């Protein structure tokens, strides 16, 4: 099966994020950049499907030349080749989905696997938008993906339990936390990744509308919560919750 995995470069989840004083963005000095954790799960799932069924895993990202780094990491995990859609300007989810839809039209994968959300903008939009633009079914928040011929059955993490849906390929699946535990790139994997194909395509050569309809005007630090006080015992804790905070 040919699987396309869109990935995004994001700050390491352990990074402390600071908003710049002028509100124009976040401070990026000392930020370590990684593959969005949910996209890493998507790469892992794609590799496992390929290991069972054969096929090809193609990575794609939309960003600056430096994003090659994350594509190389994914190639070192075992993906076959990668595409970097070069773009420097800020794009909204609609534009990202349009770019992906265009490339998917050329690449013709049977399955698109990607993270349920990127942990930088926390939008949780691109997979669903892409599925609609392609006219494909979607399964978001996947915790299990099973195949029988061309039919896919997906277990989804929803409010209050697990939901199971089924459809025929092609389809878009977005990954949740418990789908798998991503592998680390091995040293031979890293060596091999250097020779794998990484194609660059300028975003503006694709002929899709890139003008953002969602604009971020400014960023601000959230209101800071003041630390309270320490209590000495369980008895004191229950007492203050009852008489002072009046919540129990």
């Amino acid at each position, binding site marked *: 099966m040919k699987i396309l995995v869109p990935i995004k470069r994001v700050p390491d989840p352990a990074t402390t994020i600071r908003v710049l004083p002028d509100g124009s963005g976040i401070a990026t000095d000392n930020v370590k950049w990684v593959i969005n954790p949910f996209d890493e799960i998507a790469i892992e799932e794609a590799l496992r499907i390929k290991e069972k069924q054969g096929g090809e895993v193609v990575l794609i990202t939309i960003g600056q030349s430096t994003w090659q780094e994350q594509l190389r990491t994914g190639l070192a995990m075992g993906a076959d080749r990668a595409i970097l859609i070069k773009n420097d300007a800020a794009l909204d989810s609609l534009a990202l989905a349009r770019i992906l839809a265009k490339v998917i039209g050329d690449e013709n994968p049977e399955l698109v696997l990607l993270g349920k959300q990127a942990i930088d903008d926390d939008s*949780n939009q691109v997979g669903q938008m892409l599925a609609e633009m392609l006219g494909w079914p979607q399964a978001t928040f996947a915790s299990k993906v099973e195949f029988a011929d061309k039919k896919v059955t997906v277990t989804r993490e929803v409010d209050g339990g697990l939901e199971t849906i089924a459809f025929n390929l092609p389809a878009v699946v977005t990954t949740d936390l418990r789908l798998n535990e991503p592998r680390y790139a091995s040293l031979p994997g890293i060596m091999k990744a250097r020779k794998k194909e990484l194609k660059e395509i300028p975003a503006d050569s694709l002929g899709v509308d890139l003008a953002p309809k969602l604009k971020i005007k400014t960023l601000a630090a959230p209101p800071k919560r003041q630390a309270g006080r320490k209590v000495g015992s369980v008895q004191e804790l229950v007492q203050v919750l009852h008489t002072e905070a009046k919540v129990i």
Partner: protein
Amino acid sequence: MGDVLIFAEHQGGHFPKTTLTAVNAGLELAKKRGGNAIAVVAGDAPEALAGEIAKYGVSKVIALAHANLKNYVADAHAAALAALVKKAGAEFVLATATAVGKDLAPRLAARLGAPMASEITAINDDGTYIRPMYAGNAMATIELDGPVKVITVRGTAFDAAKPADSAASVEKADAEIDPSAAKTEFVSFNQTKSDRPQLTEARIVVSGGRGLKSGDNFKTVLEPLVDEMGAAMGASRAAVDAGFVPNDLQVGQTGKVVAPELYVAVGISGAIQHLAGMKDSKIIVAINKDEEAPIFNVADYGLVADLFKAVPEMAEEMKKLKHS
């Protein structure tokens, strides 16, 4: 112009609190943008439920009916709603960012060619919105540009709508769903069995972290306290990652966002991504043996203690308090 279509999500024949939150946010948006708030209830026979939501202050309810809308699936619902939005000439579609809202709204936005704002926490008078980014470490002021806009709201950022004096009229509409937009088959819903309140609706939430050390300890150590307090149980991502509890208990950036009156964090260090899901709680209590744990920086009351001793003691104290 300015009309707001509110997607009134229902589960098992009733509206969860998050739907009343969407109604209230929809009423606020309609007022600020000078339009009407119209609720939409989708289903195979949605009339009775439509009558329910009509009591909450909206100006009209549309009962959108079609056999393919019996169970929630994204493609059929997006197609039916997009057709309705165009027909009604609405400027906004609004839903709460529940699992359904998050799944549906972006697909609907793409079908309408509309920009979408996820999980907004405020509707500004000047036409902009506030939404958290980077696990809530940055609050963005954003602008949506286009004749139609799609918005999901964060359930904890708006109050639930209250019943109004009179009920709005219910209008039945047969949905139009192109067969090409009905490719998904709903197979089953496996509901987590629990007598406890829902995480997103509870007045008190007690959450456990990696400090609990095992799934068994969630049952034997944490659950007695949870039940003694009449609370909902939550967990940190670390506890979910370690396989102690299912993911639908996860509180945090990538799980549920809660803001109860009382949040008790037990054995949770307080990683950024967990704080993103609970730091708007009214009162936060942290119980952790590591006094340097970052959770103490946001806690109103902190107790540095071994949770395996403190939690059973607290359950016991709660019992005493109830009987005093």
